[in-house]
Every structure is written in C-alpha cells, then in structure tokens.
C-alpha cells in the first residue's frame, strides 16, 4: 500500500498535466535552467573563495559544515511548506482516509516525498560547493564516498525540524483570520535575510577566518554539524556513524510520534477562524471599480500571487528609501564621479533600475489563468470582454504605479535634471509598467491554464509568466542596448525621448490588439 501511494503521489510531478502543454514547456524549462545556472554561479564563486581560505589553514571540515548549513537552509524552507501542505492539510486527506489505507502508510509515503524532494534541493548547494572545492583542493574518492553517505542522511534531520515548524505554522495560520499576511511577512523576512547574507557575504567570510577558533567551539557544541564536518573533512568514520545516528534517531522518533495518531493530525487542521458577519452599510460601486476590487481581493488572498508580485515593487521602494537616505552622497559624489556620463548618469540608471525591477512584476500575466473554473461565472454576468480585460490592465498598472511614481519623483528631486529628462524619468517607467501589463495579458490570453489545482501552476510555473518575464527583459534590453553599443556617445535626452515615443506607439498598438484579438480570445474562454 505504501508503495502504491508513493507511486501515485509522484505521478503528479510527471503527468502530462503538470508539465503543461507542449507550447509552454520551452520557456518554462529554460527559466528553470537559467535559475539553476544563476544560483550555481553565485554559490560557486562564494564557495570557491571560502575553500581557498579554509583548506590552507587545515579547516577543511568547516568548509563542509558551511555548505551543509546552506543546503539545510534550502531544505528547511521547502520542508515547512511541504509539511504544511502535504502532511497536515492535504486536500486529499478525506479521500485517502475514506479508503482502507493505514494512516501510517499515508504518513510514510508523504514523508518519503518530502525527503526525495529535499535531495534535489540539497544538490543546489552541494554541486557548486563541490565544484568550488575541486578548483581549490584535491578531493579523494574515500572522502567523496563518505560525503555521499552523509548527504543521503542529511535531509532526515532537516525534515524533522521543518516538519515541527510546519506543524506550528499550520496551527497558527489556521487560527488567523488572514493567514496570507502572516506568510507574506515571513517570506519577506526570509528574503531580506537572504539578501543581507549575500550582501555581507564577503565580510562574513573574513569574520569567519578571524574568529575561526570561536567557530570551531560553536560548531562543536552543535555536535551533528561538527560530526558532519569531521566525517567528510577528516574522513572520520566514527564521526560519520554519529552523524547518521543523529539524523536517523530524531527522524524515527518523529515518525513514531506522528504515526501514533496521524488521523487526528490530518483532521485537526480543519478547524478555522470564523468571522461573524456584522451588517454594515453597503456602497454601490461603478462596475469598473467592482471589477478592480475583485482583482485586488484575489491578489490579497493569494499568498503565491501576492509574493510573486510584491518583490519587484518592494525592491523599488527599498531602493528609493536608500536613495533618500543617501541623497547627499549621490548629489556630491556620484554625479561628479560619473563625469563621462555627466549628471545624466543617475537619472538614466534610475529608469533602467526601475524597469529592471518591473520586469519581475507579474500581475497581468497570470490574471486570466487565475480565473480558473470561475471563468464561466464571470462570463455569465453582463460584462463585456473590454470591461474585464481593462479591469485587469488597470489593476496591473495601479498596483505599482504609485511606488514607481514615488521612485521617479525622488530621483528627479534629488538629481534635478533638466526639464525634459526629468519628465522622461517620470513618464518612461510608467509607460513601461503599462506596456508590461499589456504584454503579460496578451501572453496569458494566448497561453492560459484554467484547469489548475494549485494557483502556483499559473502564477509561478505558468508559461505566460515566464514568457512575460523574458519579454520584459528583452524590451528593457532593447532600450539599453544602443547606449552600450555607442558607448554612451549619444544624445541621451533625445534618445530617451525617442524611446518614449516608440513606447507610446507600442502601448497604443498593443492596446488595440487586446481590444480586438484579446476580446475575441476572452469571449471563448473555458469553452
């Protein structure tokens, strides 16, 4: 029974439906490859530097500990989400419980799924880690074999810790009236920590080297980490055995505890916070406002949708605040230092930065797919296709426009460029925002997926989202390329003005396309 369950749980990853239509596979897989390459290169450079510092002073074991910690971090974060969704509130709980299947088999098949998924995440740190090591330090077969054995057991302890966190996360969110906010704040804190780590990584490694003795003491206290380092770094088999036991025993205890009453665990999370309706005065809204509010509430109530759209905007906001704080430095230093480009440098870079961040702002590119099975409901109402599509465009634009405007105005006020350039710094990013919304909507009208089971299928893994992101980068690249090709030797103000004019034409043509072709596509959605 356990094997049957495991086989079917893995079918979701390999079924044609989850892979998607042939048409959208190429950009999707291309993005995965690019993402892996990007992360691998980032971690490779970090680890290579670390290996070069640690091995000459016979602290190789510390290197393995640090790579291990990074891989554990990846696994931990995914386990929390997987544990919450798969172990505690899977939508298939009722179905499986209604069948003559032992709850322990359900538990074990789900744990195996999480462990196997973690092996993939583990490799994200270890492949660049090993390549970085290969360039700096000879690595013998014995050491490699010990590492493989250790890595086979490493996910177990991570699954234990992640599952405990996932359990409490599930407990807390089920009691909250708006659990999405809690999850979004948590994710943003995580991302903040990640970027702080990357930003300060150079100093961090220097600090590690200075305080290396203290680190040794610290890692010795956290015994399993030290055992891992000693096992792989020093080829210490006793340390390997202790490390394996330190993974297997907690995992075994967790399985025994959960197995004891897994039915209660599966069904306990169904209790939810209840809002009692209090009659309030209602407001009659114009249809377009009602449609906008509907889009907004969908955005606000979907963790996946929210977090995928927020990052770019928040980066713009954070950078703007940084610019305000460093206003004096920018005025006095940067403008003077960028003499080759004169005082135009900062306003031009601001446009490019804002556009770069907006490339990852994906609202309209999944807004059609997100209608899902409710598209019939929407189409049964007396709404024209123009109204619906306009509401999606307006929502895409209005959500980010105030922050983009704030960023542009900040740049204008601080750098005080000439009037035309100042105007373009305000208008070009707004226009870019609008066009990316239009293009995203076009992609999604063309490549939509309405039969999804999880929003992530269209928000994170949707073909239209990937196409939109690449399309946005290409659009931005086309604007920047002439500046680089001519090595800044162009009349920059006039160039940006021409870009602006071309973008106005592009925006108008794309809008016409949506109103003709797009409306036709919308009017047969779901048929």
């Amino acid at each position, binding site marked *: 029974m356990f094997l049957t369950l495991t086989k079917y749980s893995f079918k979701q990853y390999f079924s044609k439906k989850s892979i998607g239509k042939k048409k959208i596979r190429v950009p999707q897989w291309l993005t995965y490859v690019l993402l892996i390459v990007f992360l691998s290169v980032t971690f490779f450079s970090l680890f290579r530097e670390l290996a070069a510092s640690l091995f000459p002073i016979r602290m190789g074991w510390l290197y393995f500990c640090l790579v291990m910690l990074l891989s554990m971090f990846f696994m931990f974060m995914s386990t929390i989400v997987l544990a919450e969704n798969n172990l505690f509130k899977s939508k298939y709980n009722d179905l499986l419980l209604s069948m003559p299947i032992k709850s322990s088999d359900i538990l074990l098949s789900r744990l195996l799924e999480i462990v196997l998924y973690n092996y993939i995440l583990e490799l994200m740190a270890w492949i660049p880690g090993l390549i970085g090591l290969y360039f700096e330090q000879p690595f013998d077969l014995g050491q490699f074999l010990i590492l493989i054995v250790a890595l086979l057991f490493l996910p177990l302890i991570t699954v234990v810790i992640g599952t405990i966190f996932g359990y409490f996360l599930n407990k807390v969110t089920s009691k909250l009236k708006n659990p999405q906010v809690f999850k979004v704040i948590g994710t943003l804190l995580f991302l903040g920590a990640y970027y702080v780590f990357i930003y300060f990584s150079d100093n961090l490694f220097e600090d590690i080297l200075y305080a290396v003795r203290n680190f040794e003491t610290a890692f010795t206290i956290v015994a399993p980490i030290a055992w891992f380092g000693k096992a792989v770094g020093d080829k210490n088999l006793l340390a390997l055995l202790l490390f394996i036991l330190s993974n297997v025993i907690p995992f075994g205890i967790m399985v025994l505890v959960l197995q004891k009453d897994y039915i209660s665990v599966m069904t306990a999370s169904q209790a939810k916070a209840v809002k009692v*309706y209090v009659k309030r005065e209602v407001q009659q809204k114009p249809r377009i406002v*009602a449609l906008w509010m*509907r889009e907004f509430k969908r955005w606000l*109530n979907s963790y996946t949708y929210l977090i995928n759209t927020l990052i770019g905007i928040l980066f713009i906001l954070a950078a703007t605040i940084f610019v305000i704080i460093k206003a004096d430095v920018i005025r006095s230093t940067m403008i003077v230092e960028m003499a080759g480009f004169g005082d135009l440098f900062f306003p031009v870079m601001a446009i490019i930065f804002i556009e770069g961040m907006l490339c990852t702002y994906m609202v309209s590119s999944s807004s059609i797919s997100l209608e899902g099975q*409710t598209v019939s409901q929407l189409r049964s109402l*007396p709404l024209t296709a123009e109204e619906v599509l306009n509401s999606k465009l307006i929502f895409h634009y209005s959500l980010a426009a105030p922050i983009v405007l704030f960023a542009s105005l900040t740049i204008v006020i601080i750098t005080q460029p000439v009037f035309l350039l100042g105007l373009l710094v305000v208008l070009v990013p707004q226009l870019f925002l609008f066009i990316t919304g239009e293009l995203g909507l076009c992609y999604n009208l063309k490549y939509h997926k309405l039969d999804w089971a999880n929003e992530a299928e269209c928000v994170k893994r949707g073909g239209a989202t990937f196409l939109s992101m690449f399309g946005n980068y290409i659009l931005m690249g086309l604007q920047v390329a002439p500046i680089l090709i001519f090595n800044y030797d162009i009349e920059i103000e006039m160039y940006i003005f021409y870009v602006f004019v071309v973008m106005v034409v592009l925006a108008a043509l794309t809008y016409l396309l949506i109103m003709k072709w797009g409306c036709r596509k919308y009017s047969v959605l779901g048929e």
Partner: protein
Amino acid sequence: MLRIEHLTKKYGDKVAVEDLSLHIQPGELYGFIGHNGAGKTTTIKCSCGLLSFDEGEIFVNGVNVKDNPIQAKRDLAYIPDNPNLFEYLSGIDYLNFVADIFEIDKATRENKISKYADQFELTSSLATHISDYSHGMKQKLAIIAALIHEPKLIVLDEPFVGLDPIATFQFKEIMKEVCSNGGAIFFSTHILDVAEKLCDKVAIIKDGKLIRTGTMDEVKGDTSLEETFLELEKE
C-alpha cells in the same frame, strides 16, 4: 422568455445537441431532463451565452444571445451545477460584486440580501470566505446572487444538489414565486419526483435530441415521469 430555435452544437466531430427547439413562456417552470452526457448542460450554457453554437438562434426575452449577449445576460441569471464562485471573496463581497455589475441600487440590494440570506440561514456566514463554504452554502449563495437583480429568466443546472431539505423547500417556493410574478425558470435535474411535482412543462433530451416535450400531463400521461423517462431511454 427563452426561445431556442434549431440549436446545434458540435464539439469537433461530436454532435452534442442537434436541432433542438424549445419555447419557454413567462410564468413557466420548465424542467429539462436527460441522462448524463445527453446535452443538458451544453444547451443550458448555450442559452446563457457561455458557449458558442454552430447553428440555430437563441432569444432571451426577445434578445438574440448571439448578437447581443450582454443585453441578454442582463435579463437572466445562471446557476451552474458546480458553483465555482470567486473563492477569494467573502459571501457579502460576492453578493455586492454581483449587485454592482447589475447596477443594483443600495436600498434594493440591502433588502434582497437581507431577505434571502435570512431565508437560507446564511446571514451569519456572509463575512466568511467562500473557500470555507460547504457545497450547499455555495449553492445557497449562488441562488441569492441570482435573485438580487430580479431576473426575468433563471437558468439552473442541477440546482438542488447539496441543498439541505429546508433550503430545498424554500428554494422551490422561491421558484414558484418568481414564476407567479411573470418570470420563467428553466432547470435541469435528475430528481424526477421534484420535476414532476414542480414543473409546468418538461423536456426530455437524449443523445443531443429532444425526444419529448410538453406539459407534464402530456409528457407522462397516466404513468409517472420516472416510468416515462425510463421507457424513453430504452427506445
């Protein structure tokens, strides 16, 4: 109120509905029965402007669904068999959204929401997200939303699925009330007892073709609707 003339709908080579004609007059409660896959939902969706069709014409209150779908939709309400409502909205948000789309004034919507939500015992749950509703609660909410703009025609696909006995009874009373006020109701159902007791007229569809239609007495004769249906299915 609903006039379907020679409707033909194909899915590729497969003919789902063939040359189907039906006339539903104001005040009529019209049942639509047939086995699974007979073409009921396709006919209903075509009538509501949700599916394009290959041949024929459909008129809602005299308005051609093909030529003027928005005007036609203003006069009708559609309740699907599986109420896939906007789950990210609360019940009250959904009702207000529908009311906004139909441009219902504040006083009327407050009155309607209050009346029907109380009647279906849904008032206390209106602040809850639809995603947390049971199937029956979603069905009740879909019914309330359908009644907010006082449609001239209500088209329902299996409306009683998931409703508790009290809600079923109340909804049947509401259906009668809508028809007595000059509206019309066209609904599909597999519950033949309900259709027999409730409907003025009934149409039986088999393999996309209308095989029997008329008043309840004309269709079933001296036997029950169930017996008539089973006999027709055997032919």
